[in-house]
């Protein structure tokens, strides 16, 4: 990899950067590019916001799993694990 990433090359590293899994050398190239490229700063920000917006769009649906599991079921399941209880 050359010392200077293009915007096209940077995009391939976003997913690892996002997860904090970019190796130090690549991370340095990535951050060097961001220092001089406001377009990629904007893109990275909108990529991050996209993940958040997607989560929140579903988060505003009813939490059906939590809401749909009555306490009696929890108790019954836990009791079922212990024979004779």
């Amino acid at each position, binding site marked *: 990899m050359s010392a200077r990433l*293009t*915007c*096209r*090359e940077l*995009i391939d590293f*976003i*997913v690892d950067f996002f997860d904090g899994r970019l190796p130090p050398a690549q991370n340095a190239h990535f951050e060097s590019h961001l220092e001089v490229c406001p*377009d990629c*700063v*904007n*893109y990275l*920000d*909108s*990529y991050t*916001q*996209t*993940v*958040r*917006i*997607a*989560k*929140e*769009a*579903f988060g*505003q*649906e*009813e939490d*059906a*799993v*939590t809401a*749909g*599991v009555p306490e009696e*079921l*929890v108790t019954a*399941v*836990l009791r*079922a*694990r212990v024979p004779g209880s």
Partner: protein
Amino acid sequence: MLAVARRILHNEEDARDAVQDAFLSAFRALGSFRAGSRLSTWLHRITVNASLMRIRRAASRPEEPIEDFLPSFLDDGHRASPGDAWGERADRLLERKEACEGVRRAIDRLPESYRLVLLARDIEGLSGSEVAEALGISTNAVKIRLHRARQALRELLDARVREVEP
């Protein structure tokens, strides 16, 4: 559980079958349920897995292209159409209830193999290896599909965010 299966499977009968699969799996795996864990979280993961497994067992469909949704670049590697920052407009997007529905519809527009990975990883919270195992693909394929799905969703949301007053 049914709501989780519905958003993955998009078919009422399949969703109900997946929930039934999930209950059976949960019953068989009761011994692995750790006291102190939240039952709802445990059942949630089992339901997502059961839904993905049901898709995996269905007849495989040809991979749909996602390239039309991805950002484009010039020959010199620069963006073909750079945009300004989303800024606070992104924060305000979901203040309108219909916007949430719009975001969910945008996710539904993604090609199926990408939509599934985005849902399982970013919405349902499964790990890359859990999704890989459930779908029978490599963890690297999960990573690539997730990245492309996020990029495509970002392009689909871009116009919606820009409609919000700055």
